[in-house]
C-alpha cells in the first residue's frame, strides 16, 4: 500500500513539469507579450519597448525564461505579476480560499440536490416525476451560467434585495456574510453539476436496484426507506463520489463565467485575465497550483480506492 502511494506521488512530479512546460510554450506561441500590450495605451518608441522587454526578462530565450521561472518556483518564489507588479504567490494564496470556498459550496449544493433527485428519479422510473426531474436537470445543464447568474442578480439583488449583487467577503471577516455572498454564485455553479450528479445517481441506482441483495433485503421485510438508503444508495454512491471528486477538482481550476458575473476574485478570472494580458508568471503560477490541487484530489481518490480495494493495493 505504502509503496503504491509513493509510486503515485512520484508520478506527480513529472506530471507537473509537463503541465508547466506545455502551458509555458502555449503562452509563448500566442502573438504579443506584456510589453506589446503596453503600447496600446502609452506612447512608446521601439527603444522604450526594447528596454522594457529587457527589464522584464522577456528578451531572453524561451528555455532561459522557463528555467529562471522554475528556479524561482523551486525556491518558493513564483515571480511578480507583469501587469500589477504584485507577487504571484501572494495573489494565488489570496485566491485559493475563495476558489476553494466557492467550489466546496457548489459541490455541497450539487450533491445535496443532485443525489436525492437521482434517487427519486430512479425509484419513480418512467413516471412523470422521472421525466420532470430529468427535464429540470437538463435545463440546469443547458442554461448558460452568465445568463442564469444575471437573472439571479436581477431577481434577488436588484428587485428583492435579498442578496448582494456581487463581491466577496472572507469567512474569517464575517462567516454569515461570506456564506450569504457566495450563495447565488454557488447555485449557478452547482446548476450544471446537479444535472450531472443526478443522471449518474439515477443510472447507478437503477443498476443497483436490480441486484439480488436488494431483492433479499426487501424479502427480509425491511422498510423500503432502509432498503433504498442503506442497501441500494450506499453502493450506488461509489461511482458518484468519484465523479464528485473529479468535478470538485475541475471547479478548483476556476469557474470563469460565474466568477466574472458575480465579480468573485477567484482562480478562473485571474487565469483568463492573465492570458489576455500575457501575464506569464500569473498564468504559470495559477496553472501549477491548480494542477497540484487536481493531482492531490486524484491522489486522495487513489488512496481511498486502495484502502477499500485489495486488488489495487496488491498491484
Amino acid at each position: 500500500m505504502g509503496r503504491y502511494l509513493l509510486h503515485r506521488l512520484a508520478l506527480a512530479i513529472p506530471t507537473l513539469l509537463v503541465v508547466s512546460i506545455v502551458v509555458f510554450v502555449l503562452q509563448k506561441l500566442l502573438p504579443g507579450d506584456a510589453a506589446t500590450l503596453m503600447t496600446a495605451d502609452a506612447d512608446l518608441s521601439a527603444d522604450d519597448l526594447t528596454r522594457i522587454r529587457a527589464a522584464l526578462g522577456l528578451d531572453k530565450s524561451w528555455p532561459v525564461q522557463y528555467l529562471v521561472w522554475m528556479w524561482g518556483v523551486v525556491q518558493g518564489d513564483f515571480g511578480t505579476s507583469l501587469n500589477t507588479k504584485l507577487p504571484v504567490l501572494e495573489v494565488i494564496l489570496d485566491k485559493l480560499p475563495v476558489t476553494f470556498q466557492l467550489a466546496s459550496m457548489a459541490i455541497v449544493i450539487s450533491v445535496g440536490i443532485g443525489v436525492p433527485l437521482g434517487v427519486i428519479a430512479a425509484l419513480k422510473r418512467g413516471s412523470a416525476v422521472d421525466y420532470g426531474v430529468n427535464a429540470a436537470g437538463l435545463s440546469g445543464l443547458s442554461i448558460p451560467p452568465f445568463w442564469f447568474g444575471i437573472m439571479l442578480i436581477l431577481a434577488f439583488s436588484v428587485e428583492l434585495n435579498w442578496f448582494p449583487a456581487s463581491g466577496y467577503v472572507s469567512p474569517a471577516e464575517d462567516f454569515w456574510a461570506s456564506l450569504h455572498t457566495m450563495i447565488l454564485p454557488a447555485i449557478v455553479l452547482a446548476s450544471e453539476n446537479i444535472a450531472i450528479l443526478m443522471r449518474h445517481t439515477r443510472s447507478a441506482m437503477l443498476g443497483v436496484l436490480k441486484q439480488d441483495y436488494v431483492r433479499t433485503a426487501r424479502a427480509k421485510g425491511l422498510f423500503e426507506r432502509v432498503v433504498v438508503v442503506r442497501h441500494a444508495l450506499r453502493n450506488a454512491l461509489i461511482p458518484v463520489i468519484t465523479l464528485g471528486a473529479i468535478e470538485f477538482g475541475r471547479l478548483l481550476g476556476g469557474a470563469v463565467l460565474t466568477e466574472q458575473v458575480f465579480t468573485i476574485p477567484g482562480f478562473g478570472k485571474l487565469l483568463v485575465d492573465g492570458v489576455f494580458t500575457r501575464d506569464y508568471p500569473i498564468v504559470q503560477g495559477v496553472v501549477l497550483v491548480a494542477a497540484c490541487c487536481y493531482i492531490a484530489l486524484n491522489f486522495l481518490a487513489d488512496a481511498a480506492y486502495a484502502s477499500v480495494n485489495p486488488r489495487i493495493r496488491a498491484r
Partner: protein
Amino acid sequence: MRFETLRRFATASLIALAFAAPAAHAQPAQNTLRIGLTADPDALDPMLGRTLVGRMVFSSMCDTLVDYNEKLEFVPRLAESWQWAANGKTLTLRIRANAFFHDGSPVDAAAVKASLDRARSNPQSLRRSELGPIAETVVIDAQTLRLDLRSAFIPLLAQFADRGGMIVNAKPAEAAGQEFARNPICAGPYRFAERVAQDRIVLQRFDRHWEKDQYHFDRVVYLPIPDATVRLANVQAGSVDMIERILPTDLPNARRDRRLKLADAVELGWNSIIINTNNGAKADNVLGKDKRVREALELSLDRDILNRAAHAGEFVVGNQPFAPGTPYYAKELPPKPRNVARARELLREAGVPNASFTLMVPNDTERNAVAQIIQQMAREAGFDIKLQVVDFATSIAMSQKGDFEAYLLSWSGRVDPDGNVHTFFHSTGAQNDSKFVSPIIDNALDKARELTDPGERLKLYSAATAVLLDERPRIFTYHRKWFFAYSSRLSDFTANPDGMIRVRGLRWNAQ
C-alpha cells in the same frame, strides 16, 4: 449517512441560511464611496500604469502637477502656476508650498524633479517618450522648477495632467523598485491602504492634503466589476455607489431607475477602421493601394445607422480624430452621407467591383457588433469583408507587425490634440501601424507642437485632418460617450471628457 441525519442537516442548513439573509448585505458607513470599475487596474505606480481604470484610481491617490476641467481648461494642482518661455523651449513651474507626500515629506521643487527624473530614466517607465522632450530639470529654488526642453513642446503640459505629471516620492520609490506599486507614496487626497487583486483597492483619506476640504469621504473603494450589466445591477442594488461605462443598451433601464443619477461626456478619443496602406506584404491589396477603394468603403457606411444599431443612437458620429464640439474639430470637413451608388462606381473605376479584404476585430461585444454592421453595409456596395476576431493583445501584436489589411480599433483620447494624432499619423509615430507617410501631415503635426495659440494650432490640425480624410489611412466612425451612474444620494459630480471619476467636490446629499 442515515436518512434522518441527512434530514437534520438539510433543516439546519435552511435555518442557517434564513438567519444569514438579513445579516449580510450590510451597508458600509456613509463616508465610504464605492466605485465600480470595468476592470482591475494594473500596476499602481504612475510610471508603470497603462490602463484607463488605473488612471481612475490615480486620480484620487496621486496628485498631478496640473489638471483640466470639463471644458478642458488647465487648472493648477501641485503646480500652482506655470510659465512658458516665448520660444516654447522652457517651462517654469511654481510648486505649491503646502503639499505633502503620504509619508509626510514635503512636495517641493527638488521632490518634483526627482519624481520626473525617475519617470524619465527608469528602464521600465512607460513615461519616457511622453517626457522625452525634457532635456533637463533644474531646481531654481524650493518652490520653483525649470524644465529645459530639447525643442518647443507645448503638449508637455497635458502630460503633466496625466500620469507623466503624477508626483511620487522618488526616494522610497527608487529603494522599493517595482515593489513600489504595492505601496505607492503619492501626494493625492487619498493614500493607498489596501489592494486585493481583482477584488478591491482601498484608499484612505489623507489629512495633510492641501485641498482636503474638497474631499468628503473617509475612504474610497474601487471594485472591479467587468460585466456592464452586472455593474449596473450593483449600483441599482446599492452594492456600489457609482459606476463607469454603462452600455448604451442599458441606458433606458438606468434612466428609469429613481435610485440613480446619470452623467455623461463625449470622449476625447475616437473609433476607427485602420487600413494597412504601407506596412509589409498585407498592404499590397486593393484597399491598401487604391484610395478610391477606401473612399468607396467610407461611402458605403451610414454612420447614423451604425450608431443607432450598435449603440442605441447614444454615441456621436464623427469622421475625424477629434470629436465634434471639441476645439480642434474641423467644422468645414463634416462626415459625408452614405452614397452606395457612388461607392459602386468607385469600385468599378478601380477595377474591383467585388473588393475583398479582412477586417481584424478585437474580441469584445461592442466591436463585434460594429464589425458585423460594417460588413453588411459595405456588402451593398460590393465589398466582401471577412471578419477575423482575435483577442486584444493578439490584435495589437499583429497590427504592429503589419499582419492585417484592416483593423477596428479605438483610442481612449488625450486632452492635448497632439496625443490623439501624432503617434498615429506622423511618419515616425510609434502607433502608426499603417506606416502611412505624408510630409504635409508630418509638417503640420510637428509645427503644432511648438505653438501655444489654439487658433494657429487649429489651422495646422485641420490641414492634417484634410489629408487624412482624402487619403483615408483610417476611416473614423464614431466617438463614444462616457456614461456614469451614481446613487441619487450623491451630488456634485461632473463628467469629464477624459472619462475619469474625479472625487473632488463629490458629496452625499445634505440630510
